[in-house]
């Protein structure tokens, strides 16, 4: 830590971690509901739908807090200046937490917009927008005042502005269900396969540059190529969600072709990471941070690149659309690309923010391997359930619940793997919050 104001990042990370834990408890309730019968009286009060809204909104909330904390950590070092206003940064953190808690309580009481993943109702959304504006203002002013532009910084700011703009398309009430889904994907797809990839790529570039000591010019050159490919394939690739919503038929071509190319930038990122690590100029201290970097690149490739590609062509998507195959991909991709990226950032920044040069990573290693193996296996069990569903319900045309009864075993396995995953998460979160220096031998 070189700048005093980087300290705010710590509070963003510390706020994100308990939300991650809570997200997992709700995920377990979801998988439980797939496997066992939840009695009518419980379903009436706390239905699957409410738990799903909480599970996914908590996911987005903790990850955005992580990105914001990451930004507040990186921007001072990249610009060589303090954050424009530390107070504003704290105010914004409290505002977001308050909005988050209100939203969750609201879901429980039935206050919802009722759009999957975007359940936050309009009045609360205006506060979300205000919070985002505060954040962008604070970050933007810091960069403008310092006026020491780098590609890493530019990509980060560009990604964050793009992210905020896209959110606006999810706010209105659309009368037409088809139009509604059309713009819903401007938020969901263009987020995870556009704006979030930009933010991720720049955070990743920053951490790699600092870990490995590889020359900025080299890292940033590849950063441009990566984000160029991400946006080239990702923007038109949105079409892979427009096959079956009542949009014109040419989307089968646009979506199919562009989204089939989407794994390219992800492969490039993986190759790039491996190369930078091979050509490192710095010794490996804090091995766990490096493990996270490689793990993130690999799991990003598997979850988003491979799993995404598997069901992106219309001929396959016709049968797998909206099944557990989608859930399998959603989990592996979000975990690989964004959960691991955030955790890597936490492991990079939190020790530094506490003035620890070399941290004790024994517990953390267990955390990483338990979480990553459990999630990989969950991806497979969700996946088997999804293939069974696609075949029994969609190809054979047997009833929905008939298919579900064949999938039950695999959803049960997912639940039990979820318990293992939870133990990994608890280990990791405790480790991060109580991180301590490595004992000198």
């Amino acid at each position: 830590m070189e700048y005093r104001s980087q300290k705010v990042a710590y509070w963003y990370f510390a706020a994100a971690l308990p939300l991650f834990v809570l997200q997992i408890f709700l995920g377990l309730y979801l998988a439980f509901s797939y496997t066992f019968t939840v009695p009518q009286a419980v379903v009436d009060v706390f239905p699957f739908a409410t738990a799903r809204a909480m599970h996914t909104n908590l996911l987005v909330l903790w990850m955005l807090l992580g990105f914001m904390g990451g930004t507040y950590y990186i921007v001072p070092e990249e610009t060589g200046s303090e954050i424009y206003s530390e107070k504003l940064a704290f105010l914004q953190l409290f505002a977001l937490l308050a909005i988050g808690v209100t939203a969750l309580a609201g879901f429980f009481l039935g206050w919802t917009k009722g759009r999957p993943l975007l359940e936050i109702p309009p009045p609360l959304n205006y506060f979300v927008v205000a919070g985002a504006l505060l954040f962008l203002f604070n970050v933007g002013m810091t960069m403008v005042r310092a006026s020491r532009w780098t590609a890493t910084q530019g990509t980060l700011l560009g990604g964050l502005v793009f992210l905020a703009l896209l959110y606006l398309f999810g706010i209105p009430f659309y009368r037409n269900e088809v139009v509604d889904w059309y713009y819903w994907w401007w938020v969901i797809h263009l987020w995870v396969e556009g704006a979030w990839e930009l933010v991720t790529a720049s955070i990743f570039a920053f951490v790699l540059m600092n870990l490995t000591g590889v020359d900025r010019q080299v890292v940033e050159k590849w950063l441009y190529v990566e984000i160029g490919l991400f946006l080239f394939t990702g923007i038109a690739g949105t079409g892979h969600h427009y096959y079956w919503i009542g949009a014109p038929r040419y989307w089968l071509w646009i979506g199919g072709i562009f989204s089939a190319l989407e794994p390219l930038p992800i492969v490039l990122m993986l190759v790039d990471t491996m190369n930078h690590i091979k050509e490192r100029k710095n010794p490996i201290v804090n091995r766990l941070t490096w493990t996270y970097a490689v793990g993130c690149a690999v799991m990003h490739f598997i979850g988003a690149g491979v799993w995404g590609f598997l069901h992106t062509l219309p001929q396959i998507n016709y049968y797998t659309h909206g099944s557990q195959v989608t859930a399998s991909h959603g989990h592996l991709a979000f975990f690989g690309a964004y959960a691991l990226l955030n955790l890597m950032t936490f492991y990079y920044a939190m020790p530094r923010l506490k003035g620890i040069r070399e941290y004790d990573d024994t517990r953390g290693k267990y955390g990483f391997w338990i979480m990553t193996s459990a999630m990989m296996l969950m991806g497979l069990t969700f996946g088997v359930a999804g293939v069974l569903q696609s075949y029994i319900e969609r190809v054979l045309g047997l009833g929905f619940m008939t298919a579900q009864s064949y999938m039950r075993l695999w959803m049960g396995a997912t639940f039990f793997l979820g318990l293992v995953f939870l133990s990994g998460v608890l280990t990791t979160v405790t480790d991060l919050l109580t991180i301590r220096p490595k004992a000198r031998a």
Partner: protein
Amino acid sequence: MSKKTAFWIFLIGTLSSAALFLWATYDTQRQIAALSHVDKLSDEVVAGKRAFQKHNCNDCHTILGFGGYYAPDLTRVVQRVGEDGIRFRVQHPERAFANSWRKMPQQNLSDGEISDLIAFFTWVGNVNNNDWPPQDSRKRLSRGEQMMVASVGVSPGAAVFQTKGCMNCHSLHGTGGTFGPALDKIGASLSAEEIRKYVTDPKAVNPKAMMPPQKDNLTGRELEEVARFLSAQK
């Protein structure tokens, strides 16, 4: 490759993809009116959409394939279970799914809301969406339907069974409701005459019966046919 070349790759890649995407968005907006039958998008349909969102149905059920995967897709639900079938399930989920291992919450919807929802589902069901989902495709009949259609040829009773609400509560070949027992093997235990008696007035046979009497729902001839059809299911 220099950093400058890399920057141009970024700029050209992004702009070309964005240009294609925005053009296609403009064109899609133009075509959506016809593809989704905007002329039939009445206030009632919109009210149904609001009710659908208000009760967060979409986080359990997918529609057009998006949402929660916990419950059946509702894109073609009118075609699948009919208007009365929807009304019964939404009004009394605790009864409709009493015997299922997966429950739907009782959300106390008003009759008006349910009618709006049905209008909404009817509208969505007619969207021209490249014939998704496959299990409800009319071009590609499902295995369950093929068996039903095959037996319609032999016995018009199958058609009665399909269209007179029996499938809201009973299933055949894995398709249908779960409130009542599956009837795939009913012919092995009951004769046509016994079935006719039961269906006419279940309470007369079994005082604890929960099945509503069907004598006003079916004509005498339909009753005969459905009884004959079911007694052949062994």
